[in-house]
Each structure stands twice: as structure tokens, then as C-alpha cells.
């Protein structure tokens, strides 16, 4: 995330006062289901690992307010999800799911990612 984003998108959110996440506690399981059902996985990968179609959302998951704000107001390539199609409570579930994704391995611990030739 670049600075420009932070000031234009995330900072105003604090005023917007995101926080009313519905009555139920967020659920990891529901979050995973929603993440799949509403198509986040298409661009961000089933574990939020990211691809060229969507930034990595894990392991350094953004704060819940920032995620919610991005989903509502994305200024760029990502389709916007308005309240009518994705509720605040569902977003809270998604955040819970993303936060529960385990840390990926260190690339140096993976044989095929080690010792690749780079530079000349």
C-alpha cells in the first residue's frame, strides 16, 4: 500500500467511523465461505496470498477499517462492493478469516525457491 492510498482512502475512514460490525462476533468459518462466495478468492487467492489480479491480503493483513474502506471505495482496479451486496458483518467475517490464515513459509526454507540465479 502506498502513502497516497493511505491519505486518500484510509485516513478519511477514521472520520467515517467504521466499527459497527453487527451483533454476532466475526466468524473465521463464515468469513472463508463469504470470501469464496463473493469472489474475493478469484483475484486474491483462496488464502489471500495474492496474484497479479489482486494484492496479497495475507500475511500482513491490513487493519479491519482499512480493509472495509477499500472494499467500499476502491479507487483502482478492484471492483467496489457496496453495502447492498456485502454487509459490514460479512466484511468483519472476511477480516477474521484473513487474520486466521497461517504465516507462509520463509522462501529460504523452500528448496525450489532457494539458490535461483539473479543478477549478473
Amino acid at each position, binding site marked *: 500500500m502506498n502513502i497516497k492510498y493511505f491519505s486518500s482512502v484510509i485516513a478519511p475512514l477514521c472520520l467515517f467511523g467504521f466499527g459497527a460490525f453487527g451483533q454476532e462476533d466475526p466468524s473465521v468459518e463464515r468469513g472463508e465461505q463469504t470470501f469464496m*462466495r*463473493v*469472489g474475493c*478468492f*478469484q*483475484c486474491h*487467492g*483462496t*488464502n489471500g*496470498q*495474492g*496474484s*497479479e*489480479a*489482486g494484492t*496479497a491480503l*495475507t*500475511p500482513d493483513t491490513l487493519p479491519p477499517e482499512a480493509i472495509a474502506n477499500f472494499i467500499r471505495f476502491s479507487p*483502482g*482496479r478492484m*471492483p*467496489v*462492493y*457496496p453495502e*447492498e*451486496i*456485502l454487509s459490514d458483518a460479512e466484511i468483519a467475517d472476511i477480516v477474521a478469516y484473513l487474520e486466521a490464515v497461517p504465516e*507462509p*513459509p*520463509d*522462501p529460504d526454507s*523452500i*528448496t*525450489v*525457491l532457494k539458490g*535461483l*540465479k*539473479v*543478477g*549478473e
Partner: protein
Amino acid sequence: MTKSPEKPNVGRRKFLTGAAVAGAVTSLPSVGEAAKEGSSSKELSPGALPPSAAQMELEASSPEQINEQLAANTASAETGSFGSDFMVDVMKSLDLEYVFSNPGSSFLGLHESITVYSDNKAPEFITCMHEESAAAMANGYYKAALKPAAIMCHGTVGLQHAAMNIYNAWCDRVPLIAILGNHADANERLGATTWRHSAQDPASMVRDFTKWDDQPHSLQAFAESFVRGWKIATTPPMEPVAIVTDAHLQEMEVEDRSALKIPRYTPSEPPQGERGAVRDTAKLLVDAESPVIIVDRLARTPNGMKLLVELAELLNVPVIDIASRQNIPTSHYLNHTRKAGQLISNADVILGLEVTDFFGQVNSVNRANKTVQSRTKEGAKLVTISVNDLYMKSNYQDFQRYAPVDISVTGDGEATLPALIEEVNAALTRSHRRAIADKTKDLRKTHKDLYEESRRLAAQGWTSSPVSTGRMCMELYDKIKEEDWALVSVGASERFVSSWPHRLWNIDEHYRYLGIGAGGGVGYGLPAAVGAALANKKLGRFSVNIQCDGDFMYANGALWTAAHHRVPLLTVMHNNRAYAQETMLVQGTANRRKRGIDRSNIGTEIRNPDIDYAKLAEGMGVWSAGPIEDPDDLAPALAEAVKVVKSGYPALVDVVTQMR
């Protein structure tokens, strides 16, 4: 040419019985089994093949018509010289190696001359299961071999099939020769089918996306046409050409072969940019503080890569490689492709070398509100060197949006680079050179950082099932990197696998990456890979194809061609069980309309039933493994597949993957 017609000695029943017997006799062990045992399997007998379209055509005609046709075919048996023999001589003079074709009754003469008169060598008839595949094979073949191949089809139904992949070749600036059969003289048409398979102007259908076409009316004119077509096709901007080769000409008896002359072929030197404009470009580059070079179809040959590296190093300019051809090694410290956006917005001089969509590089278009924003900074100088303005047609819009620039050099990029390097060298003062040298350390660090970032991202989702595209690509690379490998196809876009090969593979040779199906027409990937792998077979390279599932289902008969002609090719399925790009686009549209977003899978997913690609491959005589869902199963399957390919056969590994 009329001789007393003989009774045809091949009746329908006899023909079919023969085929059945041959089929039984040549029933083979699975290709993979044979490969694993290290034994070479028996030749596939042509007798095992089903009746061809030409045979069917004969079958469908009346006995009188068959008699006439056979009489025409045997009329000059004693002299042994037919029009189509001469045509093959012309092809030989140009060292045409392959004719990709599906048989058809409007080019029986050529078919026979290639396979009998020329002993099916130079050119060899490659059996394709669809003319669209034939055109993609010729495309892939060109990009690997760097010389054109021909396709041969009916000027009507065959060309209708072939059209889409001729368009892909057009958008890709790839030369190929389309030989179109026809029966122009209505009096020579033998029946209803021949009428249906004839046209007044067959090439008109592809005229909007071929560079040139002709319909010669004599053998001498054919020779000139073919050599001219070859020359036009291979002169930048390279494009497909079409030559209508009438059945009448093919069947014509040649009485005096020595009276027919094959004109000498002299390749055209590619056009170079005007020297003054090149000098002005050099000055801009030398005086720039933060220049950047964008390249797309620059390197027509390996020399293009060398020249680009020389220019970039001379100035220490970072390069953004859009990579419709491999232009700069991925491991080169000046390859900063992953930082494209930042480089473009900071640059004071941007040089585009053979970039088709230069506008799209220096502007960004917001899909949602359809607005355009410049990505460049105020006062940045824009320069392009390309042949884009040299040959254009107006109907199809592949020329892209008009890009206003400061200097527009019309000339072939690769051919113009030596002059540009000379002019840069002449303009560089000692202080320039010092300042440029001072940049090296930072540029190397940036390259390394970009690479490390990709490595870190590849590790994410490493254990995911479906398998992440990063895992799939890196397990694959691990198994091939000690070979003289070539990634011959990634389908319509490398982005479909998140560009992992360009991010983490050491693509250090021109032939290691051949670009994409440039027109975005689906059904390019597999046949293009087979065509390229056919070229690589002779060149001793190990061919790899990353194959999207949607694309596969358009033209999977190409696998049979690979098995039949023993084309060593490793195909790894990127099987995300969807037309993923469209899934995303439909999703975005549904989001905007706020009427529910749970249905973007309708019409875009390829499930229920899930396709078993390994079984499909096996059914066509190709060794296969999968579907692989557990990423840990990938390495052993790939290792097996590599063995099969190294023993000279195609193999397919089906991997169930993440969308991107």
C-alpha cells in the same frame, strides 16, 4: 488431359476394411509406457488413420465423378510431372520445412506431391485436427525456428476455421503462408461439395488481417507469387500472406519443366530509422536524468536482445519488457519490469521500441468510469521507434489508440538499434559516462529487491490447494532448469499465471520465451506450443507449455498431432476450472449493478462435470498425470513427465490451480 478412365480399384467397403485391419495391427502400447521402458514404439501407420476429408469427398461422389478424378490424378504418371510437383519445387527453393494442414479435396494435387513426389520431406505434411490449430502451429513454429511455415486448407471452409489464428498471427507480427485450395473454374467442379468449397475470391475473408494475397493463374505466376509472398511476409512488419492455389493448376500436366523458372529469393533488408531522428533520440537519452526504455516486439532475433542490452548498459537505463518477444534477460540488472508504473511516472524520457500499444503504457484507463489519465510527468519526452506506421489496415483495430509523441521514428527497432548505439556513443561525454556509471550500484540493488519481493510472494500460498500458480511454476522450473528449455507458450497472457516465469525464471535466451496469442483469440496455446516444439525438436531444445484449461478445450486435437508426429512437449495444465478472466469481469459488472453477485460463475466456470485432462491426453496417446490437487504431488509427477519428454514424446500434467 483426358485418358480412358479406369475403374476405381478402391471401393468404399475395401477401403474401410483395410483401415480396420491396419488399425488392429498397429494398436500400440500407450506412448508413455513405451517411453518409460525406453523402447521406441512402432511407427503409427497411416493406414490406422480414419478416412480423410479428401477420401470422404471421393466417397461422397458418384462413380463417374470418382473415375474422372482418378483419371486426372494419374494422367501424367509416365511423365511424373504435375503442376503441384513444380509448386513443391518452389517451396523447396525457400527451404519450407512444414505444411500444417487438415486434408481437403481442393488441394489433393499438392497433398500427393508433398507426400509422394517429395517423399513427405521438406516440406513435411503435418496432420492437424483443425485448421485453426494449423495456423497456430505455424505461428509457434515461426517464433521458435525464426522462419515461416505454411498452412494449407480449403479456401472456403478450411479458411473459415483457420481465420482466428491467422488473426492471432497478424496481431503478433508473425509471417506465415496460407495456401488456399479452390476450384475457380465452375466447369471443373465435380459435385455439390466442390461447389460449396469454391469461391470467387477466397482470400477476401482474411484480407483485413493478411499483408498480401494473390491468386496466380499459371504455374510461372505461382512461382513468382510464392516467392514474393514469402518476401513480403518476412519483411518487417512481418505478417501472414495468402496464396490461392487452384486445383486446376495443381493438376496441370507439366510438359516442359525447364520452361518454368523459380525466381531467386533475396530477403529484404528491414527498414532503418532516419539517421537525423535517431541522432535526436540519442541526444535526449544521453541528457536525460531518469530515462526508461519500454520494449515489446523488439527482438526479432537473438541479436535484438544483444543490442538492447548494449544500449541499456551504455546508458544504464532501466528496461520495462512487455515481452511479446523475449527482449532482455530476466536476470539482467536493468530489467526493472516489475517497477513499470513507478518508472514511467518518474521518467523524463521514455523510449518505446516496437511497442504496439504505446498509448496504453503512458496512460492508464480506469475501467469503472472510463476515464484516461496520463501516467507520465509534466514535460516528459516521448519517443517511439517502430514499424507500426508502415503497414496498417483499417478494419480490425489492433493498431491501438493513437499516441502523441515528441519523436516518432519509423523503422524496424532491431535494425535501427546499431545506429542508435553509435549515436549515443558519439554523444556521450566523459562526465556523462561517469554519472551513468555511478548509477550501477543502485540499479543492481533495485533489480535484486524486485526479485526478492517476488520470491517472498511466491512462498505465500505455497501449501494452498488448489495449487498456487507460484508453486506450480516454480516446481516446474526446478525440473527443467538444467535442460536447454524453452517456454513455448503461456496462452493468451502470462498474467494468467501471475507472470511467475518472468518474475523468477532465468529467461536468458531469445528462444526461452515466445510471447502470447497476441489477438487474444482463444485456442492458440496448445497448437502454438506444438508448432514451436516441432521446431525445437530439431534444435535440441526442451519445450514446455503452460496451458490454460479454457484454451485447451478449443483445440485439444493438437495433442494428437504431437503424439502422431512424436513432438516432445511438456504441457502443464493451469486448470483453474474456469474462464477466469471473464469470471472476474462479470464479477465486477455485477458489483457495479448491485443486484446480487453470486452468479458470476454462470457461464464462466468449467465444472460439473470437471474435465479430466489427463484422461483426454491418454486417449490421444499422450503420457499424462493428474489431476493434481495436493501441491506435494506435483514434483514427482513433473519429474516423470520430464523423463517422458526427454525420451522424445509429449506429456501432460494436469494441475488444479488457483485462478491466477
